[in-house]
């Protein structure tokens, strides 16, 4: 009741503006949900029917064939396994290194702070670019190894700045109390500072995990063996290059049937591959704001 009265407080022309606004917002929401709904529905429809008449609610034309074929394909699972390994290793490495580096950088008394700061900031503006980096990775013997994907980006200057800003917001009394108690750097950092920084740690971890999970460029240039491909590369050949994994469609007799099936497999592949993050991200909603705000304070 109270909400209604609040809306009623607006004068008539304001109500009109608001209603137009709400409609626009509603359209945007529909524009997000509609393609998703279409993909979900289409993934259940027989390939021939989908090709000829599109979506149908005649359930006799529905099938789980696409899911069975995608789930029983080994390469998809290899992709999942690799994506999990790379994302977890990258997230742990990156968050640990970044949180550690941010601590001295947050202390005004740290000697060499200016020097390190300059060194780090320069890399945000200037870099060697694709080929020099590729040649370095190649010379280090890291081609076709997980480390090529996981190590070079493990320290993020931007995230370090965010963590540093967050540390600086922690009351100094905490540190002074610790120093009086004779706590060492390590004790203060791990026992006192980190426990009050969980929101920012969760935020950074989420960013790094999602970023690694969803990227494909580094894996594309550095990893050649099929056994090392992360999920996104497997998806790329199915969704973008129109090359379903061997075995997914090869039992079909005609070229036309193979093409129709390959098309249907795309829908199921999209659903299966997106499911983990789609299920997980709502649980992180409370951390979205904290991270963005910490980054915005000192750009």
């Amino acid at each position, binding site marked *: 009741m109270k*909400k209604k009265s609040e809306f009623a407080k607006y*004068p008539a*022309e304001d109500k009109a*503006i*608001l209603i137009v*606004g709400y409609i626009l*917002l509603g359209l945007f*929401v529909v524009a*997000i949900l509609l*393609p*998703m709904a279409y993909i979900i529905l289409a993934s259940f429809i027989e390939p021939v029917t989908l090709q000829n008449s*599109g979506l149908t609610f005649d359930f006799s034309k529905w099938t789980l064939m696409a899911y069975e074929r995608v789930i029983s394909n080994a390469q998809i699972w290899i992709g999942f396994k690799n994506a999990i390994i790379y994302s977890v290793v990258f997230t742990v490495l990156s968050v640990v*290194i970044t949180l*550690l*580096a941010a*601590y*001295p950088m947050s202390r005004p008394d740290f*000697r060499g702070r200016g020097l*390190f700061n300059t*060194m780090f900031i320069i890399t945000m*503006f200037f*870099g*060697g*670019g*694709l*080929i*020099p980096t590729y*040649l*370095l990775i190649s010379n280090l013997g890291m081609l076709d190894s997980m480390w090529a994907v996981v*190590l*070079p980006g*493990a320290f993020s200057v931007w995230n370090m700045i965010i963590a540093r800003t967050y540390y600086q917001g922690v009351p100094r009394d905490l540190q002074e109390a610790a120093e009086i108690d004779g706590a060492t*750097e*390590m004790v203060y*950092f791990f026992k006192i500072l980190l426990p009050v920084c969980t929101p920012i740690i969760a935020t950074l971890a989420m960013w790094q995990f*999602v970023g690694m*999970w*969803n*990227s*494909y*460029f580094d894996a594309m*240039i550095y990893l050649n063996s099929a056994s090392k491909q992360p999920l996104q590369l497997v*998806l*790329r050949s199915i*969704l*973008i290059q129109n090359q379903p994994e061997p075995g997914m469609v090869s039992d079909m007799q005609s070229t036309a049937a193979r093409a129709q099936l390959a098309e249907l497999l*795309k*829908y199921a*592949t999209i659903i299966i*591959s*997106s499911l983990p*993050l789609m299920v997980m*991200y*709502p649980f992180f*909603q409370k951390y979205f*704001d904290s991270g*963005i*705000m910490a980054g*915005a304070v000192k*750009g």
Partner: protein
Amino acid sequence: MNNSTSPAQSPGKSGVIHNTLVYMRQHWQLYVLFILPAFLLTLIFKYIPMGGVLIAFMDYNPFRGLLGSEWVGFEHFERFLTSPDFLRYLANTLKLSVFGLLWGFPVPILLAFLLNRILSKGIKRKIQLVLYMPNFVSVIVLCGIVRILLSPTGMINSLLGTSANFMTMPQAFRTIYIASGIWQGAGWASIIYTAALSNASKDLKEAAVIDGANLIQQIKAVEWPAIKDTVLIQFIMQVGNVMSIGFEKAYALQTDLNLNASEIISTYVYKKGILDGDYGFSTAVGLFNTVINVILLVSMNKIVQRMNEGKGI
């Protein structure tokens, strides 16, 4: 902490060095445990490749290495800058990011204003959850969805009653790229504005309502001032990034037939360097892009700094 760093009366050069050494010995953990990993990663994976840009001035041969390859001066740059493709790739890159910025920038601000005016907290949260969702879809899946929806028999064509193959049309590429970018990113980008808006004091707003201010006046007097600085800084930062437009999405939306519009500098660098093995030339093109980028970023950064000191123009 203060045994030998006694109040430095006249900190001569040797005194400063001495103090630093004492500090470092006392706080060795800060150097060895905290900053060393980040320092090494930066040195190896950022600074060594910076030296590698010398390849841009060489006829680089991977078997002879950096020391054995021949210097060619600015030959690669001349070849690129005088080639007819150069202007097209540069224009494609700039158009994609500048138009993307012009179309895409206002949408999150508008979304934030609207979200801020939703009275029910529960509904607002649910809408936000939907708005954030596309951010968690990967580039490959996004481009896969785009290709499905835009295929000759896809959803868009059946809605329009046509059977156009949009993915092969150069003139459609930018629209596809920018629209799908807004679809994916606008909700997520609105977070920063929503957060800034929630700082707009409730009291101030109520006072404005009591004063009889209408919606437009309230926005002008209360909400716009609350997010003005954020909007300006975001805009300037994005202008600074127009040359660093990403590789992944453009490459995943490329087809042989839309290359006229979809070949941008980063995809060209990849094809020349990794696929053709033309290391020197590819590095030169990349370096050219980086240099423009640095100039843009540094000047935009200067503007932001000046704004921060003057508390927002």
